[in-house]
């Protein structure tokens, strides 16, 4: 295990979590306001300086029932914070969002109601009005250029849709191309020392992580339960945090880490959310009959157990020796498998989760515990992390605490690629907070005196 510190503290980031939540109009209930624990929120969260900008979304029946069962088992359930608007909202930039209509098509689809926080609903309308802002669509950066010393980025090379190559010179380059592409661009640009797992040296590709996800499906008596599962938003749900991080005693358990769990729906898409009890044929009249009997009375958490994925010496990214992309560049290669720690963690958490689903009154609970080898074809969040991590030591991290490349001070790398390991939470909030944190350092420190912001 190669877990290590981020190099920043929660207190460093709190103002920037706040900035990001107010930009996005996050709906949620505060659990810790300036140190005061509040009923209805997450009692384990760090102290926040002010409440969420919007109250939590209304919770449908199955989510409410989950919270009731969890409460009766002694947990403290709270609404999952959500980038869906619980009410009309205007963010600090003056951009307006509309109230969510719980249509159920949020995840994987754009929102036609301006109800989901995304760049075009929160910040692009303001950026495009700025005279010093321009953008190029359908272009792909193929390389970050550096000068002869290798210590200074001079711009980027990109390709447009006609295949023509262009160069954009720059004094400052900010790389924000999603986890694996950040790492791929760094490796292909020869920036930073590539990670070598055998020698345990180098940093680019190091500490790659994903998420440890599992579920438990509850089948209920259709005469007594009608959950109307088509009522959903992108991250609606009631969750508990008792089994995350260090919130519980791991003494006899034989693993570290954990996650949150809950009845969380990321959408109400009609086919994907249709589950039938084990033993049902996979097609034909009996399958149809089972769908009809179970659709309204099944609890299908989109993400039931959302667990951490710690970093290991043998889990990493490098350039593929064989496969190439359309430009002839090596693809990113993921070398990854589950370690016992994550599998033990997941088995324990999935059992705990299934207990709550059972306590909701389910006739049958089908546990989908995470087992065996990592399988890229089995969807378990988009939360890829690490590979160009931040830290305090240039020999074990690519970036300093301001997301600035140790080796190339005029290059900043933003995104979850900076996470040294993946906690049991969704990355987006921390990605946003780190981006604001880094941007503040660029504005207030770097621009006045361009150069390394940390001397190690």
């Amino acid at each position, binding site marked *: 295990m190669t877990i290590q510190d981020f190099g920043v503290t929660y207190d460093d980031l709190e103002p920037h979590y706040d900035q990001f939540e107010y930009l996005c109009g996050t709906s949620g209930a505060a659990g810790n306001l300036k140190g005061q624990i509040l009923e209805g929120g997450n009692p384990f969260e760090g102290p926040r300086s002010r409440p969420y900008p919007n109250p939590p979304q209304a919770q449908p029946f199955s989510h409410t029932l989950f919270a009731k069962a969890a409460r009766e088992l002694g947990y403290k359930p709270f609404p999952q914070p959500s980038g869906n608007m619980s009410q*009309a909202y*205007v963010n600090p*930039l*003056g*951009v*307006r*969002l*509309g*109230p969510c*209509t719980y*249509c159920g098509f949020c995840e994987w689809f754009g929102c*036609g*109601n*301006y109800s989901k926080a995304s760049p075009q609903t929160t910040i692009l*309308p*303001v950026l495009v*009005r700025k005279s*010093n*802002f*321009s*953008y*190029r669509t359908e*272009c792909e*950066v193929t390389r970050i250029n550096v000068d002869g010393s290798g210590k200074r980025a001079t*711009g*980027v090379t*990109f390709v447009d849709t006609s295949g023509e190559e*262009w*160069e*954009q*010179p*720059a*004094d*400052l*380059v*900010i790389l924000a191309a999603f986890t694996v592409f950040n790492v791929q661009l760094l490796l292909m640009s020869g920036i930073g020392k590539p990670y070598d797992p055998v020698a345990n040296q180098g940093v680019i590709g190091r500490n790659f992580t994903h998420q440890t996800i599992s579920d438990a499906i509850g089948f209920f008596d259709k005469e007594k339960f009608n959950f109307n599962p088509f009522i959903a938003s992108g991250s609606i749900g009631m969750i508990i945090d008792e089994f995350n991080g260090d919130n519980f005693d791991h003494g006899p358990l034989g693993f570290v880490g954990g996650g949150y769990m809950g009845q969380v729906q990321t959408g109400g898409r009609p086919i994907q959310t249709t589950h039938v009890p084990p033993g049902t044929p996979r097609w034909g009249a009996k399958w149809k009959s089972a769908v009809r009997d179970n659709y309204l009375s099944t609890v299908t958490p989109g993400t039931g157990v959302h667990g951490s994925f710690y970093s290991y010496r043998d889990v990493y990214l490098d350039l593929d020796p064989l496969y190439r992309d359309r430009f002839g560049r090596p693809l990113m290669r993921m070398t990854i498998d589950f370690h016992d720690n994550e599998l033990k963690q997941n088995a324990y958490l999935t059992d705990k989760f299934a207990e709550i689903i059972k306590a909701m009154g389910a006739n049958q609970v089908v546990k989908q515990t995470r087992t065996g080898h990592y399988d890229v074809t089995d969807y378990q969040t988009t939360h890829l992390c690490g590979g160009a991590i931040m830290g305090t030591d240039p020999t074990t991290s690519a970036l300093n605490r301001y997301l600035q490349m140790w080796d190339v001070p005029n290059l900043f790398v933003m995104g979850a690629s900076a996470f040294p390991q993946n906690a049991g939470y969704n990355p987006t909030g921390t990605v946003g907070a780190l981006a604001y944190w880094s941007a503040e350092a660029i504005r207030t420190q770097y621009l006045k005196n361009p150069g390394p912001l940390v001397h190690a």
Partner: protein
Amino acid sequence: MPKGFACRNTAVAVASLVVASSLIAAGRAQTNQYGTSLDPQNFTQIEQGRYLAVAGDCASCHTVPGSGQPFAGGRPIETPFGVVVGANITPDRETGIGAWSDELFLSALREGKGHGGLLLYPAMPYPYYTKVTERDALAIRAYLNTVTPVHNAVVSNKLPFPFDVREEMTVWNSLYFKSGEFEPDPKKSAEWNRGAYIVEGLGHCGACHTPKSTLGGDDNTHALQGYALQGWFAPNITNDSERGLGGWSIADIVSYLKTGHNPATASTGIMAEEITLSSSQMTDADLTAIATYLKSLPGQTGAAPAPASAPEAVAAGGAIYADECSACHGPDGKGVPYLFPSLAGSPNVRSADPASLVRVLLEGARSVATTGEPTGPGMPSFAWKLNDDQAAAVLTYIRNSWGSSAPAVDPHQVSQARASMARMGQ
């Protein structure tokens, strides 16, 4: 920060060159017969002229959008009689108005008589600009003298016969043109008079909002009570409570003109351009004056129009509304303030001519984004989704719900609008 993360190096360098041309009028005579200074260094007058050119929305007709050549002309203007092309009013001496005397400029602006006595078409709104004071008109001239001269010969008259015969305008002018500067009403407040001066003069609001005769002259007995043009219905902007601005406060009108949005509605179409180029850049004092004046106009009086007697269409329309419209406009029709227009109580929804409603439903709409309201929310097109009967039914429902009553929309109107959109290349 990198300027433009992804643009060609040379393009950046070229784009950053801005040619200043404020000295173009240097050496010209410093006074005119009116005794007013046209000093090219009189920046106060030039700035006044710039503001007035904005208030008059000169750029709308005289600048091709995106051309980067302000006031160089060439923008086609659609009229019921054919196309008239906006003239080059840069100080270019050959193709612009650089060689014009101030008298000629005043004559063109305020009397519709151009070089050599050439009669202008009233697409150039001289019947409104005639009310502009000489001082203001000369300030505009002073400003136009400072813009970059562009050599761009424009043939304004692209009208078909018989409208291409300019001499006909003598007759038109005798029917519809009344020359003369605005005369303040001493019984009214200064604010009201300022509003009237802008609305009836430079603002030329009536050019779109006042009904026209068959010859295109203003029907001033129904001034500002709404007119259909270019596939839109420019609504009634009097204080009429049913179909005009009666339900809006002065602050609502100011917000609409300044930002394109207010608690009730969002601007799109031709008005969105006006807001972008003109009213969003005007002072709050002038916008308040405009609102004060508009709120003083009684508009038409009389009973609300009869509701549609089409119960089947209303019932079907209600079901379509719930499925297709209520997510944004709300089950109660009230929308979301500043974001999604309220259909309840909307004068546009109740207007006798449903042209704008039909068009927005079929085409969708992008509301204007401004500095004050940068969101610019859009509505998708429903042309592919609703047939003529369904589109007519949902509009009939909207026109007869939440306290509104208006004649049913005929499916034939929808089909005509589709054909018209196809002709306009939508």
